[in-house]
Structures are given as C-alpha cells and as structure tokens.
C-alpha cells in the first residue's frame, strides 16, 4: 500500500510542478506589459504622435517620423511579397511532386533564417548598387521575412477549400483560371488575409534587418529612395542612448509598438474565427 501512496504522491507533485512552471514562464509577459504600460503611458499624449523627436536634454518630442516610416516599410514589403507569395502558395496547393516538396522545405528554411541575414541581403542587393540607404532596401529585407508566411497561409487556406466547390465550378464548364478567380480566391480571402496580418505583426517589430537598410531618419520622409525611421529602430537607438528624455521616448514608443502588435494579433484571431464560422 505504501508504494501505491508513494505513486499517487509522486503523480500529484509532478502535476503541481508542471502547473507551477507553466505559469511561472508567462510571468515575464506580465512584467513586460505592466512595466511598459506604466512607463509609456506617462509620455503618450496627442503631441507624441504628431511631433518629431526632441533633441537630447529637451522635454517632450514624439515619434511621427517613426510612425510614417514604419507604415512606408510595411507597404513596400506588402507590395513586394503578396503577389509572389500568393502565386507560390497556389502552386504548392495545386501541385504535389518532388519539386514542390523541395519548395516547401525551402519555404520553411527561409522562415527560420536569422533576420539579420535578410538585412545583409537587402544591403547587397539594393543599398550597394544604389549607393545609399533607403526605405526600399528596408522593404526588401522585410518582404523576405513576410514571403514564407504568405506562402504558407495561402497554401493551407487553399487546401481547406472543399473540393466539391471546385467541382461545381468545373461542372459548369468554367476553366481553372476563372474557377480560381471567381470561386477559390474569394472563398479563401479571409485565410490569406490572416496570413498577411501575421506577417505584418511580425515585421512591424523587426529591427535587425533595418539597421543598415532603412537606417533611420530624424525627419519625416515619404520618399522610398531615402532612408526612413522605423518604430523598433527608434526604440533601439533611444533605449541605448544616455539621454533621459530619449529613453522616455523609447518607453512611449515601446507602448505604441506593443499596442500595434497586439492589435494585429487580436484582430487576426477575430478574423480567423469569423472566417471559420462562415465556412
């Protein structure tokens, strides 16, 4: 009997251990969110969103240049990665052979390459030939990170479309191209969009590939061939600076960045759930 009791106690202890460690590992999340909220909220007001960073030592200042820069970078990377990514996603969903297996491996590997390598590539491909840093090169680096996510979400969504839907279209005498345009893509738009949102929430916080591509810019710039600031880049520079007011801006910027990322995360869950309910 003793050994049975020992068994049960061991089981309970292990269970408590698992529960304890699980909750302990999300403690950092709450510490991070709490600290950033407390320190960031002090800095944030309307002024913060519409003004440029102040010089060291002066109070106030905002992140307008970083917000516009991040927006431009995201737009460029979307324009570059969506058409290519969706096409490859369709290819992987419609064909299955050795070549597509190889492609899938490459997509997986591209997704897990270090982001700094993407920065080096954009530097080699865009910055070096052009001769200076630019928003375009930053967009190229980010689109390389975005591409695998779009490919995967397109492929997975297309595979979930019921085959009867396609058959119905073919039975009406529709060609593959018009079936794709009129039936498959409209039915899978929600899934593809959710992949795009995952991508945006991921690249919105990327810093490493922008260090030597988008480079940063203390002013608002809308020209894609000139350097731009980005929110994470600004946080990095100002967090590492010795100036008190710049660190304040970094805290405010962190709160804004976290809000953007959470917004996309939550918006995404909502969208996916709605889309699954529909189909």
């Amino acid at each position, binding site marked *: 009997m003793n050994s049975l009791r020992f*068994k049960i106690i*061991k*089981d309970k202890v292990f*269970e408590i251990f*698992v*529960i*304890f*460690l*699980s*909750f*302990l*590992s*999300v403690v*950092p*999340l709450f*510490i*991070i969110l709490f*600290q*950033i909220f407390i320190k960031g909220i002090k800095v944030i007001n309307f002024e913060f969103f519409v003004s440029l960073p102040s010089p060291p030592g002066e109070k106030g200042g905002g992140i307008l240049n970083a917000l516009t820069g991040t927006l431009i970078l995201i737009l460029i990377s979307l324009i570059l990665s969506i058409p*290519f990514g969706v*096409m*490859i996603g369709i*290819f992987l969903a*419609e*064909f299955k052979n050795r070549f597509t297996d*190889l*492609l899938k*491996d*490459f*997509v*997986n*590997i591209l997704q*897990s*390459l*270090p*982001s*700094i*390598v993407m920065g*080096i*590539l954009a530097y080699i491909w865009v910055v070096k030939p052009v001769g200076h840093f630019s928003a375009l090169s930053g967009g190229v680096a980010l689109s390389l990170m975005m591409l695998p996510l779009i490919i995967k979400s397109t492929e997975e969504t297309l595979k979930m479309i019921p085959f009867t839907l396609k058959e119905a279209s073919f039975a009406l005498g529709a*060609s*593959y*191209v018009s079936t794709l345009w009129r039936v498959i893509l409209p039915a899978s738009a929600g899934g593809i969009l959710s992949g795009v949102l995952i991508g945006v929430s*991921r690249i*919105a916080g*990327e*810093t*490493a590939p922008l260090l030597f591509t988008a*480079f940063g810019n203390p002013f608002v710039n809308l020209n894609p061939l000139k350097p731009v600031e980005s929110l*994470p880049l600004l*946080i*990095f520079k100002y*967090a*590492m600076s010795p100036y008190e007011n710049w660190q304040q801006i970094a805290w405010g910027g*962190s709160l804004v*960045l*976290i809000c953007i*990322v*959470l917004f996309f*995360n939550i918006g995404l869950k909502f969208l996916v759930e709605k889309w699954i309910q529909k189909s």
Partner: protein
Amino acid sequence: MKKDKLFFSVLWITGFLFVFLFILIFFSLLKESFLSIKSFGISFLTSSEWDPVAEKFGMLPFLVGTLFTSFLSLLISLPFSMAIALFLGEYFKTGSISKILSYATDLLAGIPSVIYGFWGIYLLVPIIRKLEMKIGVPPYGVGILTASLVLSVMIIPYASSIAREIIKLVPQDLVEAGYSLGSTRYEVIKKIIIPYSFSGIFAGILLSFGRAFGETMAVTMVIGNYNFLPKSIFSPGNTMASVIANEFTEATKDIHLSSLIHIGLWLFVITFFINYLGNLVIKKYKVK
C-alpha cells in the same frame, strides 16, 4: 484550355523563381564574403583575433559566444517549455485556463525582440549586477548570462508550441492502455508520451536552438559588445548576429565589411542545416 495552360506555366515559373531566389541568397553572401575568405581562409574560423584597425579578422569569439548563449538559454528554457507543452497537450487540453495560457504564450512570441532587449537593460541588468557583486565577479550586468536569460524567455513559446503539437500526436489508445493498467499520469507521461514523442521533441529543441542561434536585437542590447573570447557566464561577449548588428554601419574598410558578411554566410549555412534537420525529423514523425 489555353488560358489554363498559360497560368500553370506561370505557376511553375514562379516556383523556379523561388528556388532561384534561394540560390541567389547563398551566392550573394558567398560573393560578398569572397575577399575575407581569400584573405583568411580557414583561419577565419579558428582565429580569435578580431581587430578592425590591424585588419585581422577571426570569428572564433563570436562562434563561442553564440554557442554559449544558445546552449545556456536552451538549458534554462527547457523545463519551462516542456511544462507548458505537457500542460496544454496532456493535462488541460481544453477549457478556459488552457486558452488563457496558450494565448499568453502566443503573446510572448509576438513581443518584438527590441522590446525584450529594452526590458533586459532596465530590469535584468541591475539584478544581474547585484548578483555579480554578491559573488564577487566584475559587476558588468551585461554579458552571456543576461543574454541567455532574455533568450530563454524568447524561445519558450517556440519550443513549447512544437512539443505540444508532437505530444498531441501520441495515439490516444496507447495513453488509455497505460491508464487501464493502473498507471498514474506521471507514469504515462514518463513511460509512454515522452518515449513516443522523443524524436519530435528533440527536433523541436533543435529548431529552438536555431532560433536562439540567429536572434539579434535582444542579444545585442544586453551582451556587452566585447570582441574577445568570453571567459565565464558572467563575462561580456558578442554573438555572430550581434557583432554584425554592431559593426556593419561602422565598417568603412572593404575587408571589415566582407568579414562581417562572411559571418553572415556562416550564420546562413549553420541555421540552414539546423532547420533542415529539424524539419526532416518532424516531417517523418508526422507521417508515422
């Protein structure tokens, strides 16, 4: 139909373009690091001297720093990520409490790396500094240990989500057979679930190792930017990714830039193989 044929051939072409892109990535890195490869040859890997002024470059300190931080962070995060995987994959598969936990780990994965770094500077560095003063080592605050701690928090969601998926693939009959023989949950986990999913979990660990290997920003901010071999876990250091982040824009000499890209090439090659291997094991596991 003509249009369809055209469309399919366009699909094939984009497929080939993607493979071409991959080959282009490798050759671009190779071409740009050629100057460094030619000048230093194999000694680039074995030399621990990194001196931009004397134009002598060897990446051993960064390789050691990267391996050091990745292994340490893996070691720290392993109990936590396995606990989450068991919690969500076996103990509480459904219900609101598991939803909250899985949502929290998702958010943990979504926090940008630069914010982890910022948090590391303001919360972790002072704590580590106090610890270092207590045990009598130079109180840098920044260094291998600090970077590993930040990294371990960052890879927990990654490792746990792979392990959880693998644990869920364990056939239910096996688990139930275990229970019907009178095993406790602990015994089922130890004797059935873990052995059955071992190779998959191992692949998950390998993939998170690859993740830690290439992580840049958070590490750059808390590792101390020190271009020599790290002597202990309290010593500052540099990883392959962080040295690129730190020095790329400052590199004015061609050979310096080429050496940094050379490090990037190795980063590419090493993460390529880690991920190829990890994905291979997981794919085999899913077929089984």
